[in-house]
């Protein structure tokens, strides 16, 4: 079975986000970029499936700016076998919407015929939480979102999902799309020899036009602004003072 793993280049998890003064967006120029953390978990899961003999090839795909090839090299260094870069934007500030990403991925799936797509549940930049579900709809496949456990057994996969009230386990028909949550696994760090090896692994470059997909956004960003700041209150000296303050405020 071939596993396809979409990965996104996003602002690094540890970098403080700065909104541009003109309200046009978040400043991404000269900012450290990394693989979306949820996608790292998806790559890790795909590699573990290969190590367990349940998958024979792991293909990473990224859609966005040319620089996303660094993200793909990270996936290759972790253990993916090859990569596909679909260049769909020139400007690092241009986010390709989940619908357009899903349409391109649907074409990649048509070409590659994977038995499983493993994706992150959401990207930490636009927080839309949509691409996996949209791809599943376009392909008419089953979907299992927010996975914390994946067990593939022949024509079916048993997936435990993190839902509001706790956990839900469902069985989905293969081929399927699984979007992964934080607690599925702990992604490995790529070792230096593997980083070197990754440079020699195949990375195909395509464009959105190659797949005939129009990536014009459906949502226009009118404005990007800072969230309302919350000001710090007071430090109380004791539990008694805290109780008094809470009573005065009518909170208890």
């Amino acid at each position: 079975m071939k596993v396809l793993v979409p990965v996104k280049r996003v602002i690094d998890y540890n970098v403080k986000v700065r909104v541009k003064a003109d309200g046009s967006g978040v400043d991404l120029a000269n900012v450290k970029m990394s693989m979306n953390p949820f996608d790292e978990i998806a790559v890790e899961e795909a590699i573990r499936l290969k190590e367990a003999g349940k998958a024979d090839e792991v293909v990473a795909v990224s859609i966005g700016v040319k620089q996303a090839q660094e993200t793909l090299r990270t996936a290759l260094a972790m253990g993916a076998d090859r990569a596909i870069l679909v260049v769909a934007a020139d400007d690092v500030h241009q986010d390709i919407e989940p619908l357009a990403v899903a349409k391109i991925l649907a074409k990649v799936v048509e070409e590659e015929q994977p038995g499983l797509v493993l994706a992150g549940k959401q990207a930490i930049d636009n927080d839309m939480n949509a691409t996996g579900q949209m791809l599943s709809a376009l392909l008419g496949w089953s979907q299992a979102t927010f996975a914390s456990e994946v067990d593939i057994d022949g024509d079916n996969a048993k997936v435990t999902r993190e839902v509001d009230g706790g956990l839900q386990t469902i069985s989905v028909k293969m081929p399927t799309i699984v979007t992964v949550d934080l607690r599925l696994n702990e992604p490995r760090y790529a070792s230096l020899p593997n980083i070197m090896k990754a440079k020699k692994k195949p990375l195909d470059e395509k464009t959105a036009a190659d797949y005939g997909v129009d990536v014009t956004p459906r949502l226009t960003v009118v404005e990007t602004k800072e969230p309302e700041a919350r000001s710090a209150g007071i430090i109380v000296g004791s539990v008694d003072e805290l109780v008094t303050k809470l009573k005065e405020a009518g909170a208890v």
Partner: protein
Amino acid sequence: MAVLLLAEVNAGELALDATAKAVSAAKSLGDVTVLAAGASAAAAGEAAAKIDGVAKVLVAEDESLGHRLAEPTAALIASLAGDYSHIVAPATTDAKNILPRVAALLDVMVISDVTAVVDADTFERPIYAGNAIQVVKSADAKKVISFRTSTFDAAGEGGSASVDTISAADNPGLSSWVEDKLATSDRPELTSAGVVVSGGRGVGSEEDFKIIEALADKLGAAVGASRAAVDSGFAPNDWQVGQTGKVVAPELYIAVGISGAIQHLAGMKDSKIIVAINKDEEAPIFQVADYGLVADLFQAVPELTEKLG
């Protein structure tokens, strides 16, 4: 313009708070029709008909709609979409599973976690874990939207909408339910509780989380946890408050042993009053707290539990 609102139905019962908050968020967009779908949904439909501002209720009962599997539920909503300009739901894990699938079936973009409605095409939503707010205008003919419930007041009761029964769409038979492991608790539900007491990594162990629970029970509060506490196994995942967990905005939020990572703040900073108890006076949580207490939580929390109420 008309709105189709997917009610939150769990095991045949309406999640009133989440649904009523979505109704108040959607009201300005047009007449609201609520869809109650499930293996049994009639009682949920009757309950939804009483929410103020609901014009009509559709009840779809079918075995395939039980457990809110995405494929049959999305197929049903897409089959009804022709009559509506907006398809909306509270931003629960169920809706986040289903709505993007609906949007793709309709060839439109989904707009997730909307926190404010500017006009019929324009919406505000947080991005980057709440570190920025984006105002987006949709060019799509139909809008598919999930509303972050913590920022909207629940619509009241007193309505008497008509209730119609409809049939399910064909079940594509792609998935089936195996089991639920849902927490059962006498405590209020985290996202609708008036008071939330949360513990972080500083609590130290699952055993020690009992002091958090004791304070919560004294206050009739829900219990929450930071991602660090959940990842360390101190608390179950459905207690997690934060951008990747639940977003809450109670009247009173008490953060115990929580440092205040951006991820966590995104999930609770809209709370009315925030109390932080932490022994590290440099902890970022104090920058958003109305009342901060620099203290050892193992002494302060039991003392607070005793002195309250």
